[in-house]
């Protein structure tokens, strides 16, 4: 198993080896006038059940995104019984899992699970993992095409 270092944007979004196809992506500012007067912000403090772990805002701070893969690096249940959601996450991560799948499995918001996952990587409970056989984006696209055709 290859363990990824976390280096900002390189490591996010399924760790795709290249940039998005058609050139640079403009950043969020500028969307506001497009999308009306209301603004929705990611929460800083909504961390139900795990007050020590702030929810993570966007992919930046931890490099963890919805499709980041993690796997348990220790046996669940022996530590941290004060934080049951961590043990639950660990139990679900005995096989490599994406953050978004973990969120669905433990019924917690993705942003919150991302925060917990980042903390659990930091304390050595979870391990970030990259694909065993990383492919170039073009090879991924061709594989996906073949796979979809044979559905």
């Amino acid at each position, binding site marked *: *198993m290859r363990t990824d270092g976390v280096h900002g944007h390189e490591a996010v979004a*399924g760790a795709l080896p290249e940039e998005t*196809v058609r050139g640079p992506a403009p950043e969020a500012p500028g969307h506001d006038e497009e999308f009306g007067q209301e603004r929705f*912000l990611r929460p800083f403090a909504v961390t139900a059940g795990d007050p020590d772990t702030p929810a993570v805002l966007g992919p930046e701070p931890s490099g963890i995104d919805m499709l980041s893969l993690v796997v348990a690096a220790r046996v669940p249940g022996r530590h941290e019984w004060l934080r049951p959601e961590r043990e639950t996450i660990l139990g679900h991560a005995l096989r490599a899992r994406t953050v978004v799948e973990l969120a669905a499995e433990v019924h917690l918001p993705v*942003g919150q699970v991302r925060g917990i996952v980042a903390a659990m990587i930091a304390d050595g409970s979870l391990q970030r993992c*990259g694909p065993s056989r990383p492919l170039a984006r073009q090879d991924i*696209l061709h594989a*996906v095409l*073949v796979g979809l055709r044979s559905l």
Partner: protein
Amino acid sequence: MASADSETRPQEAIPQAVKIIIAGGFGAGKTTLVASVSEITPLSTEEVMTEASYGVDDIGGVEHKTTTTVALDFGRITINDDVVLYLFGTPGQDRFWFMWDELAEGALGAVVLADTRRLDTCFHAVDFFERRGVPFVVAVNRFEGSTVYREEEVRQALDVSADVPIILADARERGSCKEVLVELVTHVIRGRDPVMSG
């Protein structure tokens, strides 16, 4: 004492996780499409958000913020040992744009579901993907009793360029959804490598 460290566990191939976004207006059939092709019952998770209004000071305004949750559903298609494809239905409301930003990041491409009862509800999606440079196709989801549009009319109404495929679809039919996704990936490959794809 036994250890479940990853070193001691049998090596398991870990696939690359990639995604395609299914966007469109409220009720356009996004969840239905994801369900039609997903190998798992679509999972749902939510994102919690804090609503703030303009001009509210970041610190002083905290008490006035309200929390909203937005459901995010996704399905999965195992392509092979190396690649797993996730399909994400976007939240129906455009104002959750930051969520779109995250979804768009690194996506292979997007399907914009156009609802013929109200074509205008997918304008934002078209706009967003054009700006972000995310390749997309438009799938025209026909609802009973709604106006039947020709491809050219849809293209004009949405103001998308001639190279963006527009496909008639029925999100309830697996075969139709599969065609839409194949069309999308073909379009993406063509855009990147015009020679290799005939």
